[in-house]
């Protein structure tokens, strides 16, 4: 049975699209058939992070409005056989998405045999964010260890528990996962940044991953490669661990402490 996972946050710019791209790639790399959908209507971005921006011909809204088939709009990834991207529309009409339209596309993906559907939510708590979460079975709540991000994500938890299909139909609730990103162990150790335990305690949900702050993320987005596919960077390993946990494996958290450096490196930067 297919699983629908929304990547959401409330606050903008915290790392939802980075996370959607990496989680989708990580699951697909394990042989599952995965579709990742950009719900950020008007501000298409997932295509760039996935590196397929020049191959977008039809988008999500075209499919909903019957201007193309789903098959025509799904962009097959060039690196991973089982990975497909559905781009957001560049239209400025925010009403281009409708609940019924989204339902139709998701149903068709499920009928096509997709195992996982990742919905990359726009920021905010308006219509786009609502539609991205509405049909979700699980939610990856992306949080930065910073006051406004944590507070906004708690608002999102409230919406997941009340404004989703599962909530409205009185089914079992949407499963919530906390993904803490842009984490700086050094600043946590110095008492300048809240720790993973602090954030977990405030929000009261289980941690699916802690992703360190790293220049590798920018480098990967420059290149159009989901950062998880970069060999051997801390960020890619941390995302790979999150994928494993999503799929039910038990993996201990790592990269929570700053790497030990010699005296020289400590005094002269790096």
């Amino acid at each position, binding site marked *: 049975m297919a699983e629908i996972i929304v990547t959401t946050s409330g606050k903008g710019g915290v790392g939802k699209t980075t996370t959607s791209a990496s989680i989708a790639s990580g699951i697909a790399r394990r042989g599952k058939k995965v579709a990742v959908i950009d719900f950020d209507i008007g501000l298409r971005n997932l295509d760039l992070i996935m590196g397929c921006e020049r191959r977008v011909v039809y988008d999500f809204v075209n499919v909903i409005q019957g201007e193309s088939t789903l098959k025509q709009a799904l962009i097959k990834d060039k690196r991973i056989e089982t990975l497909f991207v559905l781009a957001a529309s560049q239209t400025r009409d925010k009403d281009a998405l409708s609940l019924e339209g989204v339902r139709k596309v998701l149903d068709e993906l499920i009928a096509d045999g997709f195992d996982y559907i990742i919905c990359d939510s726009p920021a905010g708590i308006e219509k786009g964010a609502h539609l991205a979460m509405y049909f979700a079975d699980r939610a990856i709540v992306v949080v930065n260890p910073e006051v406004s991000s944590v507070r906004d994500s708690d608002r999102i938890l409230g919406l997941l528990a009340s404004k989703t299909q599962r909530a409205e139909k009185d089914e079992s609730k949407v499963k919530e996962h906390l993904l803490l990103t842009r984490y700086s162990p050094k600043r946590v150790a110095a008492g300048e940044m*809240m720790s993973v335990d602090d954030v977990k305690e405030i929000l009261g949900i289980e941690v699916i991953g802690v992703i360190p702050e790293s220049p590798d993320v920018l480098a990967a987005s420059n290149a159009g490669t989901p950062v998880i596919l970069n060999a051997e960077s801390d960020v890619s390993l941390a995302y790979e661990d999150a994928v494993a946990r999503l799929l039910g494996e038990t993996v201990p958290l790592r990269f929570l402490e700053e790497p030990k450096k010699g005296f020289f490196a400590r005094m002269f*930067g790096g």
Partner: protein
Amino acid sequence: MGLLAFFRRSPATANIAKERLRIIVSQERSARGGPDYLPLLRRELLEVIRKYVNVDPEAIQINLEREEGQEVLELSVQLPEKKAV
């Protein structure tokens, strides 16, 4: 960390962040799903109380507790300390 940063540490504020979040998140959670009039009620109560004592908005806490089919509106007002005349 460079030499300069070594001597000019930023203050440890993570605990302040955590404490502020603990309070505001629990307050917002209790308002959630509660009646829409709660914020207005809070404002009007504040105005009434201020006719008698000058309190800060922070000094008024309203919580809606749900227990066994009953709803209890809990109101607490922290009065300012008496100044010596």
